[in-house]
C-alpha cells in the first residue's frame, strides 16, 4: 500500500464514519457517562415501602416514617400520626437513616489485644464476656443510656442475678424519677402542654432539647397561629436566648441552674397572695420558702428581678391552665431539686393530674423478673460511682456500657474516662466507635434502631402514656446484634435464666402487660393511655436549701444543647455537618461580660472550671445575660468520625458535680468558671 492508497482508504473511512453511529453515539454516551459516575451509589430500583418507627437516637422517642427499598432505608420523614411528633421531626431522629452507614459505626465485635482492638467472632466474644462476668460476680456494674426501652429490664435483672450495680446515665428522666420519689410518688412525669394556656419554662429547653421537644414545638406552633392572636403564653427563664427562648413570648434572664430557686421564689410570691396547695408537708414547705426564697433574695441569687417574679406569679395565678416545666438548660445535671420545686409550684397552682397540667403516668409493668421498678433502676447516682472508680476508691471487675458515652458526656469528662480505664474489664455495646468504646476491652456493637427489635415507653415529658414498638426494618448494615439479645445469650452461658430466650419475647410480654395489640404495634401503631397515678405530693423536702455552685470563677457557665450538634450519646450527625462552620468552638457572652473579662470578639480564650479547662474563641452577642458565658455541647470529640472529630473542645470537661446527699442525685447545672486569653 502506497501513500496515495492509504490516504484514499482513510478518506473513504472518514467519510463513512460520519454516517455510522460511532462519533454521534460515543459523544452522547460520554456526556451521559460523565454525569452518572458509576461509583456514585444508586437508589435501588424496587418498590418503596414505608414503615413507622420511634427514634431511639432522639431521647424524645419521636415517631418517624422511613422509606425502604428492598430492605435498604432510603429516606426518612416525620410521622403525621405519632403522638410525639405530630408531623415534626428532630435533627437526631432524622439521623436514624444516615448514621446507619456512618464511618464511625463498629462493623464487628472487637477485642483489645496488644496491637489494639482486633476482630473477634460473636461466639468467642460472648464466651469471653461470660467468663469475665462469671469471675467478677459481685463486682460488676452496668451503665445504660436508654431512658425509654424495656432492654433496661434485661440488663437490671442480669445485674441483680450477678449481685452487680445498675446505673442509668444522668438526664431528665432520672431527675424526674428522683423528684417524684422524694415527693412520695412514682411514675413518669408528663406535661399536657397542648392543654395549657400559660407555659412557664424554667431552664428547660423544651422546644429544642428537653423532654418531648418535637411535640412541644408542635403545641407551641398550634398555640401561636400565623396572623392570629396566640392562644397560650410561653415564658422562658434562663441565661441564654436559646432556640426555645427566641420564639417564646417572653425571655426572662436567669442565671444557669436557677430553676429551683426561681420556682420557689414564685411559690413565695404566690404564698404572699394567699395561695395554698393540696399537699402533705405544707408547713415545712412554707417555712423553708419563707426563710430562703424571698423575691429580693431570688433577685440577688438568680438575676430575676423581684418585680418580674411577682408579675410572673400574678400571671400564673390569673391563667386558667398554667403549667410550669423546670429543668437544666442542657438536659443534664439538674439533680432532683428543680423538678421537686416545680412540682411544688404546680401543686400550689392546682395543676397536678388535670388537663393542661402535670400528669403522673404509671410505670409500665415490669416483665423480667428481678428487674425491679423503673424508679429503682434510676435510684443509683452514676457520677459519684465513676469518681470513686477513677480515684481507686471503688472497683468494677467488669463495667458494661450500653447506649451511653460516659467518657465524653459527663462532668469532669477526663476523670470519667479515667474511670472507664480503671475498670477491670470494660465492655462497650455502642453502635459507634465513641470515646468510651475506644477505651473498652471488648466492643460488642449494637444494631441500630432500624435493624433491631426495641421499644419506647413514655419518654420524659410526654403528655400521656405512649408505647411504640420497633422491629427490624432494614437488613443489618454490619455484623451487629441487639444488645438485649446478646446479654440474654450470655446469661444462658452463665446458667442464669432470665425467663426469655429472645428480646422479642420480652417485648411481646411487655405489650401484653400493657394491654397493647402486638400485631398493631408491629404495623407501626402507637399505644396510648390517659391513665394517671394519684399524687398528693409531700412537699416537706421540696424547698430545702440546694447545694452551692461548683467552682470559684467569676462567670457562670451555661452549656447549650442543640440536637443538630448531637447529644450525650451521638456526635454531630453527618447530615448536620453543614451547620457547623470552621473548627473552633465559639463561646458566647455579651459585650458587658466581655469588657469585664478583658476579652474581645474572636479572641482565643481558656475557660477553667472546677472540672478542668477548655479552649475556645469568643463571640460577643447580646443573647447571653451578663455574667454568663455560654458554651455549646457536642464539640471536642476525640473519637467518632471525620465529621465530628477535631471540632472545638468539650465543655463537659469544665463541669463538676456537687453532691446532694438529701436527694441522692448530684448536681452540675450551676458551674462557675474563669476566663483568660489563651
Amino acid at each position, binding site marked *: *500500500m502506497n501513500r496515495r*492508497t*492509504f490516504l*484514499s*482508504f*482513510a*478518506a*473513504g*473511512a*472518514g*467519510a*463513512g*464514519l460520519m*454516517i*455510522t*453511529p*460511532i462519533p*454521534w*453515539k*460515543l459523544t*452522547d*454516551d*460520554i456526556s*451521559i*457517562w460523565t*454525569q*452518572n459516575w*458509576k461509583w456514585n451509589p*444508586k*437508589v435501588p*430500583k*424496587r*418498590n*418503596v415501602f*414505608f414503615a413507622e418507627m420511634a427514634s431511639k437516637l432522639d431521647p424524645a422517642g419521636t415517631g418517624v416514617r422511613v422509606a425502604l427499598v*428492598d430492605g435498604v432505608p432510603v429516606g426518612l420523614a416525620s410521622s403525621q400520626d405519632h403522638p410525639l411528633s405530630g408531623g415534626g421531626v428532630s435533627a437526631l431522629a432524622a439521623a436514624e437513616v444516615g448514621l446507619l452507614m456512618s464511618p464511625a459505626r463498629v462493623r464487628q465485635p472487637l477485642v483489645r489485644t496488644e496491637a489494639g482492638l482486633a476482630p473477634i467472632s460473636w461466639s468467642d466474644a460472648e464466651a469471653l464476656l461470660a467468663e469475665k462476668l462469671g469471675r467478677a460476680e459481685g463486682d460488676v456494674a452496668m451503665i445504660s443510656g436508654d431512658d425509654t426501652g424495656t432492654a433496661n429490664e434485661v440488663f437490671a435483672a442480669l445485674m441483680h442475678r450477678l449481685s452487680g450495680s445498675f446505673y442509668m446515665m444522668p438526664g431528665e428522666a432520672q431527675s424526674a424519677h428522683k423528684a417524684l420519689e422524694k415527693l412520695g410518688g412514682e411514675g413518669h412525669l408528663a406535661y399536657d402542654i397542648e392543654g395549657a394556656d400559660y407555659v412557664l419554662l424554667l431552664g428547660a429547653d423544651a422546644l429544642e432539647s428537653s423532654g418531648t421537644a418535637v411535640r412541644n414545638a408542635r403545641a407551641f406552633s398550634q398555640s401561636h397561629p400565623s396572623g392570629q392572636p396566640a392562644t397560650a403564653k410561653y415564658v422562658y427563664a434562663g441565661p441564654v436566648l436559646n432556640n426555645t427562648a427566641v420564639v417564646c413570648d417572653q425571655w426572662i434572664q436567669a442565671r444557669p441552674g436557677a430553676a429551683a430557686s426561681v420556682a420557689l421564689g414564685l411559690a413565695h410570691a404566690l404564698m404572699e397572695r394567699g395561695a395554698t396547695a393540696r399537699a402533705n408537708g405544707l408547713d415545712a414547705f412554707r417555712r423553708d420558702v419563707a426563710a430562703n426564697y424571698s423575691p429580693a433574695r431570688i433577685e440577688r441569687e438568680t438575676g430575676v428581678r423581684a418585680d418580674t417574679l411577682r408579675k410572673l406569679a400574678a400571671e400564673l395565678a390569673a391563667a386558667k391552665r398554667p403549667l410550669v416545666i423546670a429543668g437544666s438548660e442542657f438536659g443534664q445535671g439538674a439533680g432532683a431539686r428543680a423538678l421537686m420545686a416545680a412540682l411544688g409550684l404546680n401543686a400550689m397552682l392546682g395543676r397536678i393530674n388535670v388537663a393542661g397540667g402535670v400528669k403522673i403516668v404509671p410505670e409500665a409493668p415490669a416483665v423480667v423478673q428481678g428487674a425491679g421498678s423503673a424508679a429503682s433502676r434510676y435510684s443509683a447516682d452514676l457520677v459519684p460511682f465513676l469518681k470513686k472508680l477513677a480515684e481507686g476508691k471503688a472497683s468494677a471487675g467488669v463495667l458494661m456500657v450500653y447506649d451511653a458515652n460516659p467518657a465524653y458526656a459527663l462532668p469532669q469528662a477526663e476523670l470519667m474516662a479515667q474511670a472507664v480505664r480503671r475498670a477491670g474489664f470494660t465492655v462497650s455495646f455502642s453502635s459507634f466507635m465513641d470515646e468510651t468504646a475506644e477505651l473498652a476491652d471488648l466492643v460488642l456493637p449494637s444494631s441500630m434502631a432500624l435493624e433491631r427489635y426495641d421499644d419506647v415507653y413514655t419518654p420524659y415529658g410526654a403528655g400521656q402514656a405512649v408505647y411504640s414498638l420497633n422491629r427490624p426494618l432494614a437488613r443489618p448494615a454490619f455484623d451487629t446484634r441487639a444488645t438485649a439479645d446478646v446479654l440474654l445469650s450470655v446469661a444462658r452461658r452463665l446458667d442464669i435464666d432470665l425467663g426469655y430466650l429472645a428480646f422479642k419475647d420480652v417485648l411481646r410480654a411487655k405489650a401484653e402487660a400493657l394491654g397493647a395489640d402486638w400485631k398493631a404495634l408491629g404495623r407501626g401503631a402507637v399505644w396510648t393511655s390517659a391513665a394517671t397515678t394519684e399524687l398528693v405530693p409531700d412537699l416537706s423536702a421540696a424547698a430545702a436549701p440546694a447545694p452551692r455552685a461548683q467552682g470559684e470563677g467569676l462567670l457562670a457557665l451555661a452549656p447549650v444543647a442543640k440536637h443538630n450538634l448531637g447529644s450525650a450519646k451521638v456526635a454531630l450527625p453527618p447530615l448536620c455537618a453543614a451547620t457547623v462552620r470552621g473548627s473552633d468552638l465559639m463561646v458566647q457572652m455579651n459585650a458587658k461580660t466581655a469588657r469585664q473579662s478583658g476579652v474581645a470578639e474572636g479572641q482565643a480564650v481558656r475557660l477553667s472550671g472546677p472540672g478542668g479547662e477548655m479552649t475556645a474563641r469568643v463571640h460577643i452577642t447580646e443573647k447571653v445575660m451578663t455574667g454568663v458565658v455560654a458554651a455549646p455541647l457536642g464539640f471536642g470529640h476525640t473519637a467518632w468520625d471525620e465529621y465530628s472529630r477535631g471540632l472545638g473542645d468539650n465543655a463537659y470537661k469544665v463541669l463538676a458535680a456537687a453532691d446532694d446527699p438529701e436527694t441522692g442525685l448530684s448536681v452540675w447545672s450551676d458551674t462557675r468558671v474563669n476566663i483568660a486569653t489563651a
Partner: protein
Amino acid sequence: MPFFIGFVAILLVGWWWFPRVLFSVEQQPLRFSHLVHVDDAGMACEDCHYLNEDGSFSGLPSTESCAECHTEAMGEDPEEQRFIDEYVNEGKEVPWLIYQDQPDNVFFSHAAHAAQDCTTCHPDVGGSDTPPLHYRNKLTDYSNGGYRIVFGRGVGVDPAYSRGTMKMWECERCHAENGQSNACYVCHR
C-alpha cells in the same frame, strides 16, 4: 477503489461491530413466562404491576407475593423449581433486569402517566414465553430492549423498537405532543 473499501469497511465496523462492543447482552435471572400466567392462570397485568395507594408504583412483584402461589412447584417447568429453591426458600428477591431503568437524576411518576398505554414506553411482553434479552450500554449503564438505530428523530435508538432507558428528548417530545410542561423541575427535582 481504496476509498470505497475504506468507506464500506467503516460502515461495517460502525453498524455491525460497534453495537456489539458497546452493549453487553444479558438474560433475565429466571425465564419468566408471562404467557403461562396470563393465558393459563388467567391473571391480569394489575395483579402484579399496580399503583400503591400513595401513588408510588409497584412494578415488580416481591418474592413474598410470588410465594403466595409458588411455595411449592405448580408445574413441571424446572425454572419454577429453581425459583422456589433459590429465591422463595432463601427469602431472596429476584434481581430482575429492568428494561427501562431511568437514571437517579430523573423523577418519574407512573401515577401521572397512568392514562398512557404501558407499551408506549415498555416492551409488550404480556404475551411472551421468554423475556427479551437485556442490552446494557457499557459506558452509561443505560438499558435497551434491543438495539437498532434509525435516522430521523435523533440519532441513537428507535424508541418504538427498543423501549429502553428513555432519553430526555423522548420525554420532552411526548410532553410537547401532549401539551405538558417541559420545565426542568417537572422531571429533575
